[in-house]
């Protein structure tokens, strides 16, 4: 039992968790034909059958039930504001399954040359709204209201000590839906994690219909025809966003240190902070000449690297791997798409740089609050 817990504790470490997710993800949600074939070969599409749902649900629920036996797990999961997130996990599993199972079903129908489930022969196939839709809606609303009532009775809303601006709780956490952003603060400065990145997310989301110009797959669940777009979306939303929220909520304890779900939140625990800026790597560790006085010179390595990543890489990609997309999308759509992708990719990239090299910042100009 204890060893199982410590295994869970171990593998829920962001390093391992994120790596695992990154590795497994493309096989479950294949972005390209190649992955798709392997997905089929590994019979991973079985996940989206009734049995798959059963397995996933049973595993998740039994994990929760098992976990609730543990004091530490219980005290975190049952914190009133964390309860919705547990619910969210279950809902996500269910709705991912729901959409994917329908998508795979439709894919199969399309493959057989049949029309998809949602296909209808306009206008004959229409039904009147009254009473079918209105009634269903009414029932949903009543059920939901009933659910809200029981939820409200069963779980009192939290009210902690009165506000004390002089003493911050450890850890101080943002509302759960922003914990993804707060988790990014570990790797980026607030100007990026808190301002620029959210702006990119919002803009990126709004830009989706303008970048994904493929008219296929409108109005019905499908996967095969939209592999890349769906997998990118699922990666961004399901993984980056929700997994970071889960990590931020359940696995971050005092001093924003990592704690496994069954670990005690010991505020005395220390983590060795040995992070180094790129400029220090270059000038102090390798060249042993000390940091130059001039800021530009000092940060030159980082600036060059970032320039290559943002300025040169898209061009290179357009010429090589992404040539097809470049041609499909045209220069303006392509550049928006690639910039968004690149900034999205910065996050995992920076994570790994931190984990592997203890890299603090690529560019560090604290004089102007500019750390990147």
């Amino acid at each position: 039992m204890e060893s199982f817990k410590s295994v869970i504790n171990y593998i829920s470490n962001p390093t391992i968790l994120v790596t695992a997710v990154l590795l497994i993800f493309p096989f479950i949600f294949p972005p390209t034909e190649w992955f798709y074939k392997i997905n089929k070969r590994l019979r991973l599409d079985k996940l989206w059958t009734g049995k798959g749902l059963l397995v996933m649900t049973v595993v998740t629920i039994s994990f929760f039930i098992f976990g609730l036996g543990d004091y530490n797990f219980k005290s975190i999961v049952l914190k009133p504001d964390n309860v919705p997130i547990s619910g969210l996990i279950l809902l996500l599993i269910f709705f991912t399954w729901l959409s994917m199972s329908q998508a795979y079903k439709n894919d199969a129908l399309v493959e057989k040359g049949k029309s998809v489930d949602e296909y209808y022969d306009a206008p004959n196939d229409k039904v009147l709204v009254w009473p079918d839709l209105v009634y269903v809606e009414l029932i949903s609303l009543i059920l939901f209201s009933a659910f809200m009532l029981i939820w409200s009775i069963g779980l009192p809303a939290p009210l902690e000590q009165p506000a004390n601006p002089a003493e911050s709780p450890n850890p101080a956490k943002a509302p759960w839906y922003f914990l993804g952003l707060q988790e990014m603060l570990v790797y980026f400065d607030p100007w990026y994690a808190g301002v620029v990145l959210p702006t990119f997310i919002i803009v990126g989301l709004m830009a989706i219909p303008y970048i994904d110009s493929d008219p296929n797959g409108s109005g019905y669940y499908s996967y095969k025809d939209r592999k890349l777009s769906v997998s990118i979306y699922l990666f961004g939303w399901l993984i980056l966003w929700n997994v970071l929220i889960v990590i931020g909520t359940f696995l971050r304890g005092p001093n924003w240190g990592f704690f496994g779900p069954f670990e005690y939140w010991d505020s005395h625990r220390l983590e060795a902070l040995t992070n180094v800026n790129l400029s220090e790597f270059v000038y102090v560790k390798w060249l042993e000449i000390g940091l130059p006085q001039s800021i530009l010179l000092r940060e030159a390595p980082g600036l060059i690297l970032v320039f290559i990543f943002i300025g040169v890489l898209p061009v290179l990609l357009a010429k090589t791997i992404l040539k097809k997309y470049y041609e499909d999308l045209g220069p303006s759509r392509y550049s928006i798409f690639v910039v968004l992708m690149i900034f999205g990719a910065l996050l995992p990239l920076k994570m790994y740089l931190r984990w592997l090299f203890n890299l603090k910042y690529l560019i560090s100009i604290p004089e102007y609050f500019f750390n990147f």
Partner: protein
Amino acid sequence: MSEKKSLFEKLASGQIWTSIFRGGGVPRSRRQRMMVVLNSVFLHLHPVRLPKHAVKLKFTWCMGGLSFFIFLILTISGILLMFYYRPTIEYAYTDMMDLTEQVPFGIMREIHRWGAHAMVITVWLHMFRVFMTGSYKPPREFNWAIGVILLVLTLLLSFTGYLLPWDQLAIWAIAVGSNMAGATPFLGAEGPGSALLAIGDINFITKVSDARFGLIGGRFLGEATLLRFYVLHCIGLPFIIMIFMAVHFWRIRKDGGISTPV
């Protein structure tokens, strides 16, 4: 039939009823069923007829509808809470305690709080569903963008409401959030580039003039912050979100109703 009308039927054919419900009577015929939707200010959000799959819960998950419904729940419970809550740092916390313990049906606070969480989740899932069915594709691109704005507004509504209990949970969550505003490039006192906006010895982006100040109304979280968040939460953001919701719903209909396979 004409001899023996039930009480309800009598009522339904009377002047009062017919003046209120244009269609009159129980909608039985196809025409009546259409009219009932067309003639109701509330129901005519819907089209009269729909593709079959649009009625299927399996397809819609009812998440958009639920989001709107929760918004209504939050509006009502929020208005009720406003009767007992004073947004000052002297009273906010104690009013919250009294709401929990003394106010009749103080469960309104739980409904409001959990409703808020639920709304974030339903809006997310709604977006998820819309993406998975590819419903953002032309001609619905713009409505997707509106939807994204609605998502952001939902998060902001929840975020502004988070401060109002004025407990440790509230102010530190907002502190974490609002400190990020202080790091806005150029416009935040601790953001990159703000130091460049200076002439001579005068710095133009300081703690009393940056984005964070505009958000929280002070250098620290305090009275002004609480009031600002309260006004935004109760009036400002609901006002904006309602405008966008109206556009969102309007555009659903104008963009050809629920998305269908072409």
